[in-house]
């Protein structure tokens, strides 16, 4: 491969981003060659790698300057010059908390749901997945993004196929093929875009900022937008491309499910914002009603189907569809509030889903079942576990004071400003989420426990509660005091929304008494 | 009509006829040994045409390597395996194979032939070194081979080593069979026929 030479002076003093991407991958490879029979060595080495990554992520969060919209801590080197590929990474308000999310969830997933069987390889895969996810979130070169985006598939495939449930092979294959099909469109779109850019400027590059300046006819833009969106819609998943997810979530091991739903789903929504909105602002704007509609359908449909699930993991899969529908809604609302809420909701959904999967894992470990019907009365036997589950459930249904509400509320507010009726329809999801979550909670936790539950179900132990503690703390903290996060997200969101608005020659929605004086119906469409 | 001197024309046509006859012999003769000998005929014809075009060194290599080594190897294998039997040409088991082959052949001929009179191949090329007569030609060929084409040259040498090793592995007895050797020894000829019929 080509050599890495510094090209621009914009590089930061320390290559934080390069380190945080490569650190887990290198640790993953190291763990991969460790002796298989000594799981404890792998746990320690893997733990050091994840801890270092998490510390670095937190450091990046503190170094990150608030109030700036552009990329920070940029690393930019030409990598494979013949193909115009550069080692270009940067962090902004969009990616910052997603990186933190990955660095936080990977160790929690791994140590919250340990695999007794072939532990060494499992840790290795999780580390590689962590690095690949971070790389995807930080890459500013479309090609490098694509490489990391695809790299996430390999560890996930092996985690599902190697450590999953009964139908793991089928689930892994369906997930892999479905996602790969979406990615094929992404690759095609990416190459076409780079080709067009080359024919206009004469330089072959995959750099995001350069490609954003490509002149596209409207129809080409729509075509490329759809190509890119196909990959992201499958990954997220957006209705109706979600059918891989219930199977994959159900069959994957708990740690895999946490990473799949908590982190990898965000790759899709992240891609929508980072690439679709930046590269194709006009197509995004014009096709927004399509995505808003799909988002709303996802919200309602996911909630309705979730209500009828007999299996906890499938329930979370459909509730994810519903929650990610909100994210999609926020993204395509093209208001500062909506997009900020969407980005925050990506983080929130990661935390809430992770906590939910971990709790399900704990229940399953004790009772040997994740069928809701076989549970019941857990609150009597394990009140602390039930209490934590309640907090998570309440965060999931968007109770004010917990994190879920902040995201949902901002999304709905932002959507309401421009696309009123979509917001009204989506608000139905607020009701339905209460229905399916409380119903499931009632079936599993309320009532009188039977003999099996009483004998098998135990209260959570200290280690488990320590693993859940950071998640619960974040759920409450973000719910009460989200300002530090919002202050870091908003500047980036402002510039993205301004970018889309200027490309479409529209002005941001006005709020306030003055504007309503002229339009008595409140500016609705 | 050709725009060349008569001896050159004569040489070309004679050599061309020899080549074509030899090639047709390879394809049409039933006996493998005869086919091999017909191939030698074509190879010699081509060598003559090489000389005609100032590629003396290549002509020599053509005669030595092809006629001297490759064809001998062919004959050696024919003798070794005792397959110098007559092939049943009248029967063609694959339906429509011959007609399709002829059509494809005609297509190739027509297209290359048309191209031969076209202009698309005569554009400017990057010139590695000029061809010239005699020892100067060999020198420039050597220079090109060992400078510009050094990497392919080295790759070719690696290829040859691999080939030698591959041939040894394939032919070695009792080595568990090579990658291409699928154990179907128990199948009778009837079985093979039925497999063809599928």
């Amino acid at each position: 491969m080509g050599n890495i030479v510094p090209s621009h002076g914009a590089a930061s003093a320390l290559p934080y981003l390069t380190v945080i991407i490569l650190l887990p991958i290198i640790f993953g490879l190291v763990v991969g060659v460790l002796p298989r029979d000594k799981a404890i060595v792998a746990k320690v080495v893997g733990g050091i790698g994840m801890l270092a990554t998490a510390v670095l992520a937190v450091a990046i969060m503190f170094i990150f300057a608030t109030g700036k919209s552009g990329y920070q801590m940029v690393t930019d080197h030409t990598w494979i010059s013949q193909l115009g590929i550069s080692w270009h990474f940067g962090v902004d308000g969009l990616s910052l908390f997603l990186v933190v999310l990955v660095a936080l969830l990977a160790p929690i997933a791994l140590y919250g749901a340990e695999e007794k069987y072939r532990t060494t390889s499992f840790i290795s895969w999780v580390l590689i997945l962590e690095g690949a996810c971070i790389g995807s979130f930080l890459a500013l070169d479309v090609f490098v993004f694509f490489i990391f985006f695809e790299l996430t598939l390999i560890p996930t495939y092996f985690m599902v196929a190697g450590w999953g449930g009964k139908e793991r092979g089928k689930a892994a294959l369906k997930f892999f093929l479905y996602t790969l099909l979406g990615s094929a469109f992404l690759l095609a779109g990416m190459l076409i875009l780079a080709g067009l850019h080359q024919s206009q400027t004469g330089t072959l590059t995959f750099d995001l900022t350069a490609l954003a300046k490509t002149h596209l006819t409207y129809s080409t833009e729509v075509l490329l937008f759809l190509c890119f969106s196909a990959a992201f819609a499958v990954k997220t998943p957006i209705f109706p491309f979600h059918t891989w997810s219930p199977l994959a979530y159900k069959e994957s091991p708990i740690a895999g499910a946490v990473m799949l739903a908590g982190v990898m789903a965000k790759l899709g929504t992240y891609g929508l914002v980072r690439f679709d909105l930046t590269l194709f602002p006009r197509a995004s704007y014009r096709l927004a009603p399509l995505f808003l509609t799909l988002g709303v359908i996802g919200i309602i449909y996911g909630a309705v189907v979730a209500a009828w699930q007999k299996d906890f993991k499938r329930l979370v899969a459909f509730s994810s569809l519903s929650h990610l529908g909100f994210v999609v809604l926020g993204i395509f609302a093209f208001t500062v509030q909506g997009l900020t809420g969407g980005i925050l909701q990506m983080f929130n959904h990661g935390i809430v889903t992770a906590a939910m999967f971990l709790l399900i894992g704990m229940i399953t470990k004790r009772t040997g079942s994740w069928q809701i019907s076989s549970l019941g009365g857990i609150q009597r036997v394990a009140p602390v576990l039930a209490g934590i589950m309640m907090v998570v459930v309440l965060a999931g249904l968007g109770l004010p004071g917990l994190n879920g509400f902040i995201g949902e509320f901002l999304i709905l507010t932002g959507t309401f400003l421009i696309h009123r009726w979509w917001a009204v329809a989506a608000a139905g999801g607020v009701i339905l989420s209460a229905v399916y979550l409380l119903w499931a909670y009632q079936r599993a936790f309320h009532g009188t426990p039977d003999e099996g539950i009483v004998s098998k179900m135990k209260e959570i132990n200290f280690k488990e509660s320590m693993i859940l503690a950071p998640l619960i703390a974040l759920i409450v903290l973000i719910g009460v005091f989200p300002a530090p996060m919002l202050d870091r997200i908003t500047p980036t969101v402002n510039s993205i929304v301004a970018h889309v608005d200027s490309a479409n020659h529209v002005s941001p929605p006005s709020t306030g008494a003055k504007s309503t004086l002229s339009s008595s119906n409140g500016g609705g469409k | 009509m050709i725009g060349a001197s008569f001896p050159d024309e004569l040489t070309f046509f004679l050599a061309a006829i020899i080549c074509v006859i030899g090639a047709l012999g390879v394809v049409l003769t039933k006996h493998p040994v005869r086919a091999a000998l017909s191939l030698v005929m074509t190879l010699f014809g081509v060598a003559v045409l090489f000389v005609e075009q100032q590629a003396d060194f290549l002509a020599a290599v053509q005669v030595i390597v092809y006629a001297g080594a490759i064809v001998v190897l062919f004959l050696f294998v024919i003798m070794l395996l005792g397959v110098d039997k007559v092939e049943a040409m009248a029967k063609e088991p694959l339906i429509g194979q011959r007609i399709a082959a002829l059509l494809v052949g005609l297509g190739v001929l027509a297209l290359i032939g048309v191209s031969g009179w076209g202009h698309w191949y005569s554009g400017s090329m990057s010139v590695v070194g000029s061809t010239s007569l005699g020892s100067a030609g060999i020198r420039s060929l050597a220079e090109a081979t060992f400078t510009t084409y050094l990497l392919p040259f080295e790759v070719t040498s690696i290829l040859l080593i691999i080939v030698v090793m591959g041939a040894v592995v394939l032919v070695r007895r009792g080595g568990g069979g090579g990658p291409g050797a699928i154990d179907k020894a128990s199948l009778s000829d009837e079985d093979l026929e039925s497999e063809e019929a599928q």
Partner: protein
Amino acid sequence: MEHAVIFIPIIPLVSALFLISFGKKLGEPLSGWIATLAVGGSFVASVITWIGVLGSHGIDRTFIQHLFTWLPVGSFQVQMAFQADPLSVTMALFVSGVSTLIHLYSIEYMHGDKDFPKFFIYLNLFVASMLILVLGANLLITFLGWEGVGVCSYFLISFWFERPKAATAGKKAMIVNRIADVGFLMAMFLAFQSIGSLNYSNLISAAPHISHTTLTAIVVLAFVGAMGKSAQFPLFGWLADAMEGPTPVSALIHAATMVTAGVFLMVRLSPLLALAPGAAHFITIIGIITAFVAAAAGTSQNDIKKVLAYSTVSQLGYMFIGVGSGAYVAAIFLMVTHAFYKALLFLSAGSVIHGMNDEQDLKAMGALRALMPMTALAFFVGWMAIAGVPPFAGFFSKGDVLLGAYQQNIFIWLAGVITAGLTSYYMGREFCLAFLGKRRWEEKPKVKKAARSSHAAKEVHPHDPGFKMLGPILLLAGLAVIGGLLNLPFASSLKVLEHWLAPSLGIAPTPLHAASSSVQWVLAVVDAIVALGGGYIAFAIWSKKSKHPELEPVFLQSAWYIDATGNAVVAKSGTRLAEISADVIEPVVIDGAVVGVVNIAKFVGVGLHKIASGFVRREALVIAGGTVILLLAVGIRGGW
């Protein structure tokens, strides 16, 4: 002094957090006492704040304490801020005061329960949420408390979660509230879109400048939210089911505090409401329907708590009549006095249930007057107060509401008066069945209910409770008697509440007491006669005999089938929809499409598989054919 406002919600919140951590170790009754003290502390803080607010005058009586910015997103800035003004301080005073009494009561009532500390965690959280609700300086903080009380009521209703009925009732309360909350959310969105802020001060100052349609929409949507929380027609079914919770919960949440949140919100938005008469009419109509429907349903209930539940719904309907007719002060007045006498009634009922070993069936009571004299007296005071017999509190507060209604429309007034008669009747029926007549609890074989309390196993020996229960009851009885003093109609100087609240309220199109004083006297006399008449009829019918099936029609017992209809239409069809979606649409239609694509690919693959015969020469032929095509393409591109 006003700065004490932040301590009002924070003390119970901190206490709840403390009890979450250490409640189990502290156990009974220490955790209960801590919780009670915390709420008492919050009452003290309210008093201090009140004194502080009294120190300033007129419009200056609004003090806003900013803590931090909660949601800073572009032009959307929401502060975590609490507002101390006459309205919120009034609410805080009576919420924390009544709650303190109920906490005290609960220490004895919940004695012996397995989850004793948890009960007080929930109670504290509930009070904290309710105080956040009333003290919030913008709609979103109110919404924070709003949802907080919703979820605490879910916890408390399903407190005895091992009973499926309790668990289901809790869930139902939460979901019905959520349905209505969407209205609240929409009101906030619309307010932000049209005004650019959610602060009450900005809303009120901008209200005259925004369009009439938008204003009406905001108010109606907010009222939809209030309909859920305040159990208005047709969303009142959950409140009756909520009686599955422990009795102090019913007293606290479903009488005194949470259900009044909707009324509070509408009064808080009264400056907007005053400008949107269409919305006001809508509120009045819903209020009168609710008041009448619920009162009628109350006449036929046999569960001691269900009568009170429907009576609460009915009284809330009255409050909305007041809100809708512009009698905002009357609505708040009724709310405060209602908090007194309804808490009194519930606590007395709890005392009866407690004494009767968890028996709630009125038909299985009777003649308790002699055995529980203090409880009977308290209940009698409650009856008089809610019926509006002079000089009890209800007479004055309900009188104000009816006066407001009269000034709007005589038919609304008429319906209100009929409902007042019904109120007096059903409360009288309840009193007679429980405390008069013959002993009936020995007649029918006792079916043991879930024996959760330690005293449940004993023989039935009805008795007055201990001082921790009786103290609050008697104190509330006193307040129910003298509560009317807050706002006496006779002279302007006696209308304390009206003058005090004036800066916080909107100015209604027609001021209360616009009617001539003779008309007011006539109305008051009519009220008193109707109240006494209703009570007398009840006494005449029910004091001797406990069975009058003709007066308890099934449709009233099932509350006009409204809840059952809703259940059948929404819940059943919703379940069916979920079933179809999950079992048919998902696997067959959506995944079916995916599988279909896969099958097409498979089909093509099988087809191509036939081409790949494996015969070398055939494959060579394909390659050669490909060469021809390639040559052709090159030739065409090169133009030969």
